[in-house]
């Protein structure tokens, strides 16, 4: 039995680094400190029965196990033959593997995209447009007295975010308010239980739906000293239940609300009474709370990046933060999803200058989300081969994208037999990053954290970095062979032409 301390959790962008893991007979048997999502993967998920143990190639419509060399050769051949291949995924892989991925993309002249394209890519674009006043989670933990969660639900998506970095944590300068929040949550749960019981007894009549406005007026507690939490969302989530104030907005109206808040913060009068279903008077109270806090932090999620307006929503949120910084201290930070999607952006930017949606077809990197992002490429049907690594677009992408992806060869690198692996033409097994091999990953606030290896991988399976290196070498070998053949053919053609000329001259002389 071995015990590992300070293990980093490879699930979400929080990268909690305080896990205590017990390993017995090369199996994780116990895990301490992690959330339910972490336990699901670290203790049970990684030992799944769906684990791919051998590389496979599709022959006559069926996946057949082959040797690693054969699979690598086949994959490299597909990539070299393609005119416009696409490499996608990367967010659940290490930075070391991502680096090789960029090298492979450059060698192939392919397009390169990562999962930011379907999550926080718009946040990166907005940062390029306007910049970002941000801070590390450590700073927010110790200093922030106003936390705003906008269009995200960390209680479900990043379960330890509130506990480790914001409202529930005991900071050096800000006390934890967890008791109040837990009491509130218990009250809400009790209320729900009573409602459910009276429903069963047939005595339940649903409360009348508000006719005018679905938002409650802000309580006085958002103006108090000490930690405060405001949640802005389109529905009442568990995080919203715990918050001091829940601002329910109409879907796709975030831009308008941010814009109205900016006007209020800049002392402008608004002509209208309501914005996005929220009375302007309520927004004035929220603006007051934002101005009067000592250190505010806005965390935003996919509700902003993937709703109407996309990166413009983030741009206006950052503009609001910028305006607030004239009055007080305010920071803004995206709630990044996969544990190393930030890393993918950083590695790509460090290697090519651009964080995602990169095209190498001209021999140099070009960047343009909307043109080189995976779903736009697939929906237009631009690519003629795809490599997917540590990601499952098969489970998440629109039908039109997947239909076009399936028209051409597909190579997959995933530890599990997930939806995309089932569709692959060449299917590689992989090790679980952060469990079976170590590496580096970036937390959501762009802090690099080393991942630990705690168990040995099944025999014969390479990690992402080794596998990509071998594919890259094979690609180089095939390309070298091709150019050799081409030069040989050219040489033969030239010598044949020379002999034809010589014989023509000779015959001329003879005739003369």
């Amino acid at each position, binding site marked *: 039995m071995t015990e590992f301390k300070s293990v980093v959790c490879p699930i979400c962008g929080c990268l909690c680094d305080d896990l205590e893991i017990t390993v017995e007979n090369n199996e994780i048997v116990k895990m301490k400190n992690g959330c339910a999502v972490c336990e699901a993967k670290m203790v049970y998920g990684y030992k799944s029965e769906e684990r791919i143990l051998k590389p496979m190639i599709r022959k006559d419509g069926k996946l057949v196990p082959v040797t690693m060399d054969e699979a690598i050769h086949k994959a490299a051949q597909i990539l070299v033959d*393609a*005119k*416009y291949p696409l490499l996608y995924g990367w967010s659940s892989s290490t930075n070391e593997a991502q680096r090789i991925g960029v090298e492979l993309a450059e060698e*192939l*002249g*392919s397009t390169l995209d990562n999962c930011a394209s379907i999550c926080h890519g718009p946040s990166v*674009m907005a940062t*390029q*447009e306007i910049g970002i006043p941000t801070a590390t989670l450590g700073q927010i933990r110790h200093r922030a007295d106003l936390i705003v969660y906008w269009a995200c639900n960390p209680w479900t998506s990043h379960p330890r975010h509130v506990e480790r970095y914001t409202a529930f944590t005991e900071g050096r300068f800000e006390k934890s308010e967890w008791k109040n929040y837990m009491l509130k949550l218990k009250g809400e749960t009790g209320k729900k239980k009573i409602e459910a019981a009276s429903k069963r007894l047939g005595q339940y009549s649903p409360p009348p739906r508000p006719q005018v406005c679905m938002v409650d007026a802000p309580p006085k507690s958002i103006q108090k000293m000490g930690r405060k939490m405001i949640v802005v969302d389109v529905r009442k989530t568990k995080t919203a239940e715990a918050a001091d104030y829940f601002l329910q907005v109409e879907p796709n109206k975030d*831009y*308008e609300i941010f*814009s*109205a808040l*900016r*006007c209020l913060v*800049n002392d*402008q*009068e*608004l*002509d*209208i009474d309501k*914005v996005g279903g929220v009375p302007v008077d309520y927004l004035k109270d929220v603006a007051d709370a934002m101005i009067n806090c000592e250190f505010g932090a806005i965390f935003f999620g996919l509700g902003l990046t993937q709703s*109407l*307006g996309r990166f*413009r929503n983030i741009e*206006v949120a950052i*503009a609001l933060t910028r305006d607030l910084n004239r009055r007080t201290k305010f920071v803004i930070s995206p709630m990044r999803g996969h544990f190393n999607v930030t890393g993918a952006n950083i590695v790509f930017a460090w290697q090519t200058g651009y964080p995602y949606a990169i095209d*190498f*077809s*001209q021999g140099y990197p070009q*960047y*343009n*989300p*909307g*043109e080189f992002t995976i779903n736009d490429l697939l929906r237009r*049907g*631009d*690519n*003629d081969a795809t490599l997917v690594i540590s990601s499952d677009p098969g489970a998440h992408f629109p039908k039109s994208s997947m239909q076009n992806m399936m028209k051409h060869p597909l190579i997959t690198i995933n530890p599990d037999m997930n939806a995309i692996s089932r569709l692959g033409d060449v299917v590689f097994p992989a090790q679980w990053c952060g469990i079976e091999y170590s590496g580096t990953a970036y937390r959501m606030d762009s802090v690099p954290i080393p991942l630990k290896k705690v168990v040995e991988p099944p025999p014969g399976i390479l990690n992402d970095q080794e596998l990509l290196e071998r594919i890259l070498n094979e690609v180089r070998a095939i390309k070298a062979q091709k150019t050799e053949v081409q030069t040989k053919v050219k040489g033969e053609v030239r010598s044949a032409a020379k002999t034809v000329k010589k014989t023509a001259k000779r015959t001329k002389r003879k005739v003369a």
Partner: protein
Amino acid sequence: MITLTPLRNFDVPVHASCINPDEFKSKTLKEIAELPVTEGNRNLTLSDLFKIEQDKTETPSITLNGDFKKVKRVGQGMKTGEIIINGNAGMHTGERMAGGKIVINGNADSWTGSEMKAGTIEIHGDAGDYLASPYRGSGTGVKGGYIIVDGSVGNEVGCYLKGGVIKIKGNAGIFLGYHMTDGAIYVEKQCSSRTGAAMTGGKIILAGTVTELMPSFTIDSIKPKVKVDATQSVAGPFYVFLGDLADHGTGKLFVSKTNNPQLAFYEKYL
């Protein structure tokens, strides 16, 4: 005049910034045939992908017949001459153009006329997103020129506009004239929400219906008539809004009064 016709349907994007009157000028047909293009990651020449013909007529300089939807960057940076595309045009058509004329007898894809400085683009079909909008992260939009679209346009048209005129005879998507500082945009039919967001100057004229106005605009007056450019003025009446207040802007948004009775409540502030 040079006429180009695709030899086959392209399944991957073709990068052909060499299709440009300035590039073709003073070149023989053989030299034109050897201009470099790429199809995906393959380096080819123009004659590998297109049938090239020459006749003695002077204008237009280049005629493109067929579907050019996958051919990107046609007429990039052109300064003189005229291109006629009889079919759909691909992305970045007429990007950074500084003179001349492009006529598209079909639909235009996104980023058409991006960062242009002068010249004319006529689109006798629909246009995609980011028409006359700059490259990602750039704050320098169209500085001059004239764009006419007979059909509808996508989202974020005329972002960071600094000059020039865009006339749209159909509908427009969200974020029309985002962050514009000067120039004029005219939309004849329906316009989606967030029009003129973050604008600080210039004018947007909406003669049709408007889905929703930004909260950060304030009413200024009602005008009977608005001038689009030197050649055209539109009869109203029009509500005149000023904004974007969030950016301390003084851009003008003219919205048809007759087609938008839902905005009548603004009149109480006049």
